[in-house]
């Protein structure tokens, strides 16, 4: 059993090593071309910043939308609990691309949502939702919602309700009990959920490609196009390395704020 692990540890370690190295792969030679990084950064920093902005907004939207739902399932759903959990994961069972395409139907110019919004003058007569930032962020929010809701549910579900009763006995108002007891105790879920949402969202390119225009393109779109369309491997590799690095930095800052033990635990 032991040697087996070593056997599989090697290629996996190699993958990790490779992904760290990939940024330094100029066309066919290895020349320590750090300039790849600087050019990539100066050419694509808008997409990079946009990716993190979109991912950040979507993560916060997920948190705000998912918390009450997770709370309800954990404390109020009773026998319906498992059924509602199934509802939460249901989107996973529809192919990612197809469920994003469904938003094309929903938000389409001729679709009901746009018509209603036009009727109540939220949108102008020619206003549209598709091909806007809103559509892309909404798509990301929808697609990564379960990643937020499930960890939230798990940590809320573990809260001992007697603690809340104790808070009430000590004359805490429901709001205060919620803010001082429930929220801190669900912190692991919030941390896990935000990470699980934010990290894949930052690298996502499907929502931007299907629901947006080049004006909404994110870093993932650039990496993907560089790799497969313009065959510019060095730039693509350094961009994904930059993406990875930025995420690591954000992780570290996050760890500093919430306490490192919460990230690994």
């Amino acid at each position, binding site marked *: *059993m*032991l040697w*087996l*692990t*070593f056997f*599989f*540890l090697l290629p*996996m*370690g190699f*993958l*990790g090593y*490779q*992904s760290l*190295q*990939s940024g330094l*792969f100029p066309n066919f030679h290895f020349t320590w071309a750090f300039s790849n990084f600087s050019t990539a950064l100066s050419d694509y920093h808008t997409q990079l910043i946009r990716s993190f902005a979109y991912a950040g907004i979507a993560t916060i939207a997920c948190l705000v*939308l998912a918390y*009450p*739902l997770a*709370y*309800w*399932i954990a404390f*109020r759903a009773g026998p319906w609990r*498992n059924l*509602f959990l*199934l*509802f*939460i994961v*249901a*989107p*996973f*069972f*529809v*192919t990612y*691309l*197809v*469920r994003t*395409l*469904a*938003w094309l*139907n*929903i938000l389409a110019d*001729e679709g009901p949502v746009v018509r209603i919004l036009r009727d109540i003058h939220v949108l102008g007569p020619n206003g549209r939702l598709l091909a806007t930032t809103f559509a892309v962020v909404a798509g990301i929010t929808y697609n990564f919602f379960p990643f937020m809701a499930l960890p939230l549910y798990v940590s809320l579900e573990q809260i001992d309700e007697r603690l809340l009763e104790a808070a009430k006995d000590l004359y805490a*108002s*429901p*709001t205060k009990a919620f803010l001082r007891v429930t929220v801190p105790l669900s912190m692991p879920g919030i941390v896990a959920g935000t990470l699980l949402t934010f*990290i*894949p969202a*930052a*690298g*996502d*390119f499907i929502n931007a490609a*299907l629901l947006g225009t080049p004006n909404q393109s994110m*870093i*993932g779109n650039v990496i*993907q196009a560089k790799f497969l369309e313009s065959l510019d*491997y060095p730039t693509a590799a350094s961009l*994904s390395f930059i*993406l*990875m690095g930025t995420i690591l930095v954000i992780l570290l800052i996050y760890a500093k704020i919430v306490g490192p033990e919460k990230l690994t635990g």
Partner: protein
Amino acid sequence: MTTVAETLARPPRLGVGTRVWRFVARHALTVYAILAVGYLIVPIAVVIMFSFNHPPGRFNYVWHKFTFDNWIHWNSVLGIQSALEKSLEVATLATLVATALGTMIALAIVRHRFFGRATTNVVVFLPMSTPEIVMGSSLLALFLNDQNTIQLGFWTIFIAHVMFIISFVVVTVKARLIGFDRHLEEAAMDLGANEWTTFQKVTLPLLAPAILAAGLLGFALSIDDFVITYLNAGPVQTFPIFVWGIARVAVPPQVNVVASAIFLVAIALGLANVVWQYRAAKSTRGRT
């Protein structure tokens, strides 16, 4: 929200106010939960609904007419059947291999102390905390090595899928192993079973639920994966890649049919699980 709560909760009518607030909160929350679930479900309903649409032109955006034709002739779109078959093939093979390897890694991490154990723990976690695009491109960088010795295609997809499924298998099985009562194995050994028999007759059956869950999860992830697959597929088309390609032209309702079918199978399994858990919970409650 805070201010509302405090004005309501404060005297002179503390008891009533609190109760009113709680009543509102409880029901608002229920209504919200149902709305939120609606938000999750509506796009799925749309997918299923449009699989029955008979679009007037090439674009399947607007509801036109109900028809069963798309379900009957689901493979009338060129390439859709082979793409689906390819997806199933990759998913089955990758899941089997990844589940076997992942289970062994989990066993090793939990059971044995060896040099590099902590590193293995971290390495296993890496693919889950990396954006797919980074993982996909690092694998591609590996495959694209200097001499073009590796042909992108079925096997590179397979390798990539095994890579990311393994992590989920390890995490799932590990969780089960940590709560594992080793006395059961010791008992088997005391009764004269050798290591292999013990593993086969005691360890494996006890781990089976976790392994099964991990396998199903892996299968679902594999069949759904687009980003990593797309980068490493070369000329091979899996179902998500097929959808991506056709999305640039016009998505035929047959795509919705296949997606709905996958969804219905998965949800049937999920519902079966819910019912099973419900029954299990009921029977344990009956016993105690």
